[in-house]
């Protein structure tokens, strides 16, 4: 096997005993990219892999390993453009906290950033200023989104591992569509400092990896309190790798009845049911549970997320950074800059969010949405009194065709129906590969747990993974 095809922990072993060198890993990735990237388009600004080099970091736990970063996480001196024209050529003057942590651990930041939906607005990576990414399992399909570039890069072995961000499913859904592992940590577990904000009460950075062990290693490195993010929580970060390899006998998994309804693809349903049976055969105890406000999650999300986005994206006005349209008047300069700099979905969301916050509509939309958010969170609290996990599909369908939902925003928004509640409730959730449809598209199993219980997620996910072969199957490219 080529080095690019290995997991991070396999490469760390090889680096340790001298069977691989950092240069060899980079060369292997570049060779892989040279052949595949023109088809997959996982990276935002790929031209050629010829001149790519890595800044070696001083020693550390992850010394010698490169990592791919989503285009909305600030990397000092490296283009960070949120795949938007309005941030064209933006090179941050500082590193996000997760990047500083990775560098201190010895990790090298891959010089090209991963493609994404503009400002993370989307579920398909079709909204990128740089054009869509293609799913490595079927190049006519989307990789999911918004972290579609990160997931496609990992799935096609054009990256060893990657960071994404998840506001309503943007790590888990592409992980599911691309057959890799993706974790959205608990809100407050990972610092958001240097993550270009979409919806600040929902955003969280997390890993996209080839297996559960890599996700555990990466989560350990990026987690922890950061004085630069007042919503990060000062709570010890456990050694997540220690939670791997334990059995899951007697652990209680709840199956939410509201998730297994009309709209779920029949093949996804049967793959998920088989996965649940597997968990039971490994000793987990299952029971049906209810999350009665599930049907309200998507509408609540599209009020709260767009309201926060409209406020966060006010900073893109052509003054301090990024694109500026020519004009002699300040207000006109703002309006033209934003008209020319933002793509269609960004405009739609900013305007929807501005509407929800505007005088006369605030109570009916924004305030009401915040109240329903409380009800959604209460649903989860009630289930977690009796159950350790909630298990569900990550997405109601496998990857869909490029262009299929692009003209129907509402249909696209419904792609996130199983992932959005998790962000609203602030809990952690992981998506792991659990099978394929007849057409050979991957299906992801989503597991949710109580706040700050990532350890338990890794334990269950690892037990499932080690007793199945799904994570070892690679796309034929």
């Amino acid at each position, binding site marked *: 096997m080529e080095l690019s095809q290995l997991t991070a922990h396999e490469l760390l072993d090889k680096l340790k005993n001298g069977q691989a060198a950092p240069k060899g890993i980079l060369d292997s990735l570049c060779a892989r990219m040279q052949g595949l990237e023109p088809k997959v388009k996982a990276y935002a600004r790929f031209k050629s892999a010829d001149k790519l080099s890595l800044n070696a970091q001083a020693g550390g736990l992850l010394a010698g390993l490169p990592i791919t970063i989503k285009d909305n996480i600030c990397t000092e001196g490296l283009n960070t453009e949120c795949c938007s024209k309005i941030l064209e050529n933006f*090179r941050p*003057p500082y590193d996000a906290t997760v990047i500083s942590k990775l560098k201190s651990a010895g990790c090298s930041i891959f010089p090209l950033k991963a493609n994404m939906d503009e400002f993370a607005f989307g579920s398909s990576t079709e909204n990128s200023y740089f054009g869509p990414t293609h799913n490595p399992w079927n190049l006519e399909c989307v990789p999911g989104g918004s972290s579609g570039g990160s997931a496609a890069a990992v799935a096609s072995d054009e990256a060893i591992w990657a960071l994404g961000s998840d506001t309503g499913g943007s790590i888990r859904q592409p992980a599911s569509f691309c057959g890799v592992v993706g974790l959205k940590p608990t809100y407050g577990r990972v610092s958001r400092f240097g993550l270009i904000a979409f919806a600040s009460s929902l955003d969280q950075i997390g890993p996209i990896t080839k297996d559960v062990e890599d996700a555990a290693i990466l989560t350990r490195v990026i987690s922890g309190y950061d004085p630069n993010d007042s919503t990060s929580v000062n709570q010890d970060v456990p050694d997540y790798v220690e939670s791997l390899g334990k059995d899951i006998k007697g652990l209680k998994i709840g199956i939410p009845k509201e998730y297994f309804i009309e709209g779920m693809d029949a093949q996804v349903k049967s793959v998920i049911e088989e996965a649940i049976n597997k968990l039971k055969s490994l000793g987990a105890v299952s029971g049906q549970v209810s999350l009665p406000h599930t049907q309200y999650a998507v509408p609540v999300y599209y009020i709260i997320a767009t309201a926060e986005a409209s406020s966060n994206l006010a900073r893109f006005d052509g003054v301090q950074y990024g694109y500026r349209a020519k004009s002699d008047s*300040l207000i006109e300069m703002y309006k033209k800059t934003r008209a020319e700099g933002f793509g269609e979905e960004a405009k739609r969301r900013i305007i929807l969010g501005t509407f929800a916050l505007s005088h006369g509509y605030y109570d009916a939309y924004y305030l009401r949405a915040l109240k*329903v958010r409380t009800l959604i969170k209460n649903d989860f609290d009630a289930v977690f009194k009796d159950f350790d996990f909630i298990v569900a599909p990550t997405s109601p369908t496998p990857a869909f065709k490029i262009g299929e939902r692009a003209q129907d925003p509402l249909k696209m928004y419904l792609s996130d129906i199983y992932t959005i509640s998790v962000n609203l409730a602030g809990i952690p959730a992981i998506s792991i590969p659990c099978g394929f449809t007849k057409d050979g598209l991957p299906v992801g199993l989503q597991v949710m747990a109580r706040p700050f219980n990532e350890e338990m997620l890794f334990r269950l996910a690892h037990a499932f993974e080690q007793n199945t072969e799904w994570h070892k199957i690679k796309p034929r490219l």
Partner: protein
Amino acid sequence: MSIDKETVEYVAHLARIELKPEELEKLSRQLHDILGFIDKLSALDVEQVKPASHILPISNVLREDEPHICLTPDKALENAPSKSGNFFSVPKIIE
């Protein structure tokens, strides 16, 4: 509740986004559909429910007001589309 073209135009002005006539037309239609879907929320009785602006029991996070290392003017201005000395420069506001 519904949204008409005039409201979309007004909100776009608040958001400082210039819309072409065809964009306004399309957006008004799409937002009408999206808000129709969102109106599902009005069926719920939330009179007694407290709003959750975020889910952590954290409020008013303060730090000591002490000088610390931050961006230098040069670095802060590195990405400016237009600058003059140590300032961002914008079109003239006052006649």
